[in-house]
């Protein structure tokens, strides 16, 4: 308990001094995993300097001027990443007025950008980060059609939380999207393929004697998003479930030569070899095991293990945005269904970093990368474990949230808890 108090005190100091001169920190004595679930270092000294990982070494010395955080007997990992949320775009999903993640009246679904709607003050962000999840893909859950805008990667603390504003253009191509937009998959695929065909870079020859060429093009954010995809700057994130649709998605990637990520992917495991060969990663909830509809009959809890075994890069989501933090429990359940432990940890750290293009700055405890580090009181994937300390981009965040404040207010019930004790 006294250690906890010490940590808490230190966090407050860290919070107050947050800014240009980030604190030098040494996390000592824990068992660290430097490379996702691999790169185990016993009695590790993790040095954080200028917000970055400086080094990780067994029994390394703590340089003068570094604040030491004792992690003896504890587990130290990179802060985890959840690969599909609406964090910062929604406070109360159903009955709290606006939900910016549901752009239900927006016709230009392709052009949507997280930045215009993002709320860094959302209480969901502290609720999530104090459970050891320090990065998230956030994006839109609806528009007028199947195009769900451009997702972003956020860091869950600090200024400028949006670290990558355009990590994928999202398109919903599951049974529900086909039904609500066109009444048939045939209509949906035709529409998406037509859009992509029309977004191919203009043929230089054809444009030569076009005298309209001089005319100033209209600003079109949707076109800009498609251009990013066609130029290979941003992948297309395709939500598909059925095996046949997944095979069509592989064909789509080949036809346009673009980067594709599959999300949901209930029956992706059935074509795991083809996905591996095509270099298409899968973002998924590894616990789905029910035939939810005629799209997802092949759901099985063994899917993540099978995809991984076939060489498909896998990343995980949590059950919903409020409980995006449970992506860690999901990873544990993937292990219970046969996935190797280190692969499951990869699926919530280095894999999503690579899939969403932020691996140069996040995903492993590699010197030079952002210091997202979590000290756990046990195996992080275990449901009875939780963080004792969380660092995001080198700043220690206090383990405080609106939820912990409610808890502390009512822990010992009084007549009028709203008064300060």
């Amino acid at each position: 308990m006294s250690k906890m108090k010490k940590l808490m005190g230190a966090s407050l100091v860290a919070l107050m001094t947050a800014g240009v001169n980030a604190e030098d920190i040494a996390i000592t004595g824990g068992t660290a995993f430097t490379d996702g679930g691999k790169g185990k270092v016993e009695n590790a000294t993790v040095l954080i300097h200028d917000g970055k990982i400086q080094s990780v070494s067994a029994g390394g010395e703590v340089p003068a001027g570094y604040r030491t955080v004792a992690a003896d007997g504890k587990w130290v990992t990179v802060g985890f990443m959840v690969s599909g949320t609406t964090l910062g775009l929604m406070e109360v999903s159903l009955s709290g007025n606006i939900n910016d993640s549901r752009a239900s009246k927006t016709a230009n679904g392709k052009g949507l950008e997280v930045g215009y709607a993002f709320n860094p003050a959302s209480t969901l962000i502290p609720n999530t980060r104090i459970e050891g999840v320090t990065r998230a893909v956030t994006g839109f859950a609806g528009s007028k059609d199947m195009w769900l805008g451009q997702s972003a990667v956020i860091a869950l603390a600090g200024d400028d939380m949006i670290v990558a504003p355009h990590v994928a253009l999202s398109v919903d191509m599951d049974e529900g999207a086909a039904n609500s937009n066109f009444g048939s998959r045939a209509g949906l695929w035709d529409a998406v393929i037509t859009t992509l065909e029309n977004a191919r870079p203009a043929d230089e020859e054809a444009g030569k004697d076009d005298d309209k060429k001089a005319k100033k093009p209209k600003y079109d954010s949707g076109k800009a998003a498609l251009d990013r995809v066609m130029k290979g700057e941003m992948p297309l994130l395709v939500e598909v479930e059925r095996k046949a649709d997944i095979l069509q998605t592989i064909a789509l990637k080949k036809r346009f030569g673009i980067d594709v990520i599959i999300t949901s992917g209930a029956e992706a495991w059935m074509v795991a070899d083809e996905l591996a060969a095509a270099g298409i990663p899968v973002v998924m909830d590894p616990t789905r095991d029910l035939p939810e509809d005629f799209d997802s009959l092949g759901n099985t809890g063994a899917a993540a293990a099978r995809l991984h075994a076939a060489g498909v890069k896998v990343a995980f989501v949590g059950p919903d945005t409020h409980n995006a933090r449970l992506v860690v429990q999901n990873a544990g359940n993937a292990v219970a269904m046969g996935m190797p432990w280190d692969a499951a940890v990869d699926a919530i750290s280095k894999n999503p970093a690579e899939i969403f293009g932020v691996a140069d700055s996040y995903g492993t405890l590699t010197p030079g990368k952002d210091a997202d580090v979590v000290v756990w009181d046990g195996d992080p994937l275990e449901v009875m474990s939780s963080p004792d300390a969380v660092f995001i981009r080198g700043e220690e965040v206090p383990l405080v949230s609106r939820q912990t404040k409610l808890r502390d207010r009512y822990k010992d019930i009084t007549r009028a808890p709203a008064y300060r004790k």
Partner: protein
Amino acid sequence: MTKVSRQPSWLRSGLAVTAIGIMLSACQPGGEQGDHVEINKDPFPSSYTPLTSKPTLITNVTILDGKGGRIDGGSILLQDGDIKAVGQSIEAPAGAEVIDGAGRWVTPGIIDTHSHLGVYPSPGVQSHSDGNEVGEPVTADAWVEHSNWPQDPGYVRAAAGGITALQLLPGSANLVGGRSVTLKNVPGRVAQDMKFPGAPYGMKMACGENPKRVYGNGKNSPEFRPHTRMGNVAGYRQAWADAQDYQRAWDKYERDYQAGKDVLPPKRDLNLETLAGVLNGEILVHMHCYRADDMGTMLDVMKEFGYKITSFHHAVEAYKIADRLAEDGVCSSMWADWYGFKMEAYDGIRENIPLVEKAGACAIVHSDSDMGIQRLNQEAAKALADGRKIGIDISKEEAWKWLSLNPAKALGIADKVGTIEVGKDADIVLWSGDPYSVYTKADKTFVDGAVVFDRHDKSRQPVMDFELGQPGEGDVK
């Protein structure tokens, strides 16, 4: 006046209550009184029969008895559907299957007080939405067992998660959604095959946002209230007042008949029959309620009309009034960490369950989900860990009450299940290890001594009718 049909008092006791079907007693020729009308309270009787089983002895196993006790390296004997013996060492009877439980754990089967399996089954297609009788706000005449599709693959997944019994509830669109039913988690050809023999009926009620949203937006039935929380409460109170009136009419019929008068019974009203059954203490109330103030109001409505709320459900703010819930003896069926998806769930905290336990109130871990029901042991584990982290000292032995004994009490079946005690139904789970670990799976789930799910034996992994001939048939789930 010579009447044959004087019913024994035990048969008359709940006259005004429940159900469909009428028993007419014989009328002697020449009598001046008409037939005495008796209402059949069990028109859809359980046709449950246990699956075949053989005596099973599990040895050398860690046993949590569900009452707070633990035996390390213990043994448990299941025979003739019951728990025959529990102890450190038990002699195997002739012909018994002996399972070496080294490294494994045995617990009472998990009982979920809040499920919509069969009612909103998988696949969740349009046709399968059978949980909310939207149209008018008090539908106590709807019985959820008539919506239960026993072919829901979710039942099998739940068995794989150690669920041995569960309560099906109607949804929360209505102030009074209808009757619940308690099931043994075994496959059935018809819904009655799953009904827990002798379990009392429950009734679903709902506080707060859902009823007022369903009716308040004017889309469903604009002629109906409620539109507000105060309208909700007006609706419950008028329903109880109507049920009292109905009960009085039946009481009067009974008095008059006993006095020899030639009287006709009141017209049956299936809605009021169920509500009167609650007032008579025969039907248990399960009330969906999130906010502390909503629960506080309902505790007073309960006292005003003299009925009992067995359990609040969801109860995300139970921690704010845990002392009052303890005082009134009302259970809370809760999630470990769901919150925020609507305004009344915004104040949910991860320590809700341990704080309710700490206050001495009855805490239950429930699912309300076809996914959550597969891992309720993990939900208890999270709640336990979150409680410990703030200094609430609860043992794994005690915490299992949240999963079996407390729900059994809330469902009125604690005399038969919920703990490992000699003579109780052999509804137990053999876990691959400590059930508070994410890596642990149910190796075998037993209901009445029969294996209903076995992780290592394909023949004990039921494939539901819907799954036949489909992708994924018979796959590992």
